């Protein structure tokens, strides 16, 4: 089979501008690429970037009010720090173990033991009671509390204090007990949403708003006010000095067409024109805390490249069969 030697490249060079980057949040502009690339990135971030989550639970004692599978499900949904997930193996193709139990390459074991003893108060069993056998993988709020104790740089606010109570698993009454062993495995959001590192990933087209200034001059101040008010989101405003209609926040526009309809109703079609820039996207990425937003983006690119490798034609592609012969012949 011939190689693509001498083929002309139609490669694009996308540009990126980060507007905001926090541990679990990112907002950035992506330009000079098309919707298929933006959407592929979004979908990979949501459903194909691997994380670690509890997948197998062996309950030793459970006398709580919740049944075993209810607790197992709740454990699965606890986000675990997954920075190491990309380098881990899926337990289904791990050859160091039978894929059922624990080996260091594909799984992490957790233990939980809680018993409500004497007091009349209910005991809250939270993610803080989970004991990990691997310090790299633990519930995200435990990791945050640990970071906090280490650095202590950020001011201790009430939100952080609330975080440190952990994620509630079950409440125990006096005499009730919960003891279990859990195995966390690598997985992807496509198999089960508990493995999705993304809380939300969205992108919007950047709007391009053009005001026909000539036509706008024919409007009275009252009409301009009505026009500005007709947009459900605050996209336009009136300059207090020049009394001109100006674009205040183009990105607040939700493609609702309200101002355009208003302009038509006022008998001034073409007063405002709004187009979506087809090659310019504004992304917002929020993660569950399992990995940072930056890691999520980078891992998504890596995963997407792996997927491209999977659809490459092999030199000895037997599947092509007669089609291959046909292609060479043609």
């Amino acid at each position, binding site marked *: *089979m*011939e*190689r*693509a030697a001498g*083929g*002309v*490249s*139609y*490669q*694009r*060079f*996308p*540009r*990126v*501008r*980060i507007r905001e*980057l926090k541990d679990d949040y990112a907002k*950035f502009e992506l330009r000079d*690429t*098309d919707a*298929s*690339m933006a959407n592929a990135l979004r979908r990979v971030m949501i459903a194909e970037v691997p994380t670690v989550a509890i997948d197998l639970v062996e309950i030793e004692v459970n006398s709580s009010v919740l049944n075993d599978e209810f607790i197992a499900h709740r454990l699965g949904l606890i986000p675990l720090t997954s920075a190491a997930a990309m380098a881990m193996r899926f337990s289904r193709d791990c050859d160091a173990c039978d894929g059922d139990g624990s080996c260091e390459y594909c799984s992490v074991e957790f233990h939980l033991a809680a018993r409500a003893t004497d007091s009349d108060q209910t005991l809250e069993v939270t993610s803080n009671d989970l004991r990990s056998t691997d310090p790299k993988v633990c519930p995200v709020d435990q990791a945050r509390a640990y970071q906090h104790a280490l650095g202590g740089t950020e001011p201790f606010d009430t939100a952080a204090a609330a975080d440190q109570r952990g994620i509630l698993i079950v409440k125990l009454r006096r005499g009730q007990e919960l003891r279990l062993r859990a195995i966390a495995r690598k997985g992807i959001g496509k198999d089960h949403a508990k493995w999705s590192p993304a809380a939300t990933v969205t992108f919007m087209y950047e709007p391009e708003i053009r005001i026909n200034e000539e036509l706008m001059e024919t409007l009275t101040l009252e009409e301009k006010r009505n026009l500005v008010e007709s947009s459900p989101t605050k996209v336009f405003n009136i300059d207090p000095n020049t009394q001109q209609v100006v674009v205040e926040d183009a990105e607040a526009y939700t493609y609702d067409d309200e101002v355009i309809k208003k302009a038509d109703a006022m008998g001034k079609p073409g007063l405002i024109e709004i187009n979506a820039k087809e090659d310019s996207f504004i992304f917002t990425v929020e993660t569950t805390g399992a990995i940072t937003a*930056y890691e999520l*983006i*980078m891992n998504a*690119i*890596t995963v*997407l*490249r792996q997927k*491209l*490798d999977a*659809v*490459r*034609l092999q030199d000895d592609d037997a599947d092509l069969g007669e089609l291959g012969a046909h*292609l060479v012949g*043609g």
Partner: protein
Amino acid sequence: MQLHRDPNVLFAGYKLPHPLQYKILVRVHTANQSTPTQAYTQAINDLDKELENLKQAFEDEKIRYEERPKQGY
């Protein structure tokens, strides 16, 4: 989409013959300056390079972003 950027490609499309069967048919028709395999491989290589480039762009932009507060933005 990447295939459509190639002027030698006359037709490019895909279909999923059955939603429960994990098999996709890609149809590529090219002009005689190119071959479908050539166009297909080229499109994948271009996408791969685009992503490589994007990754680098992100790394550079992250460094630039972290520099911004120091420059009094």
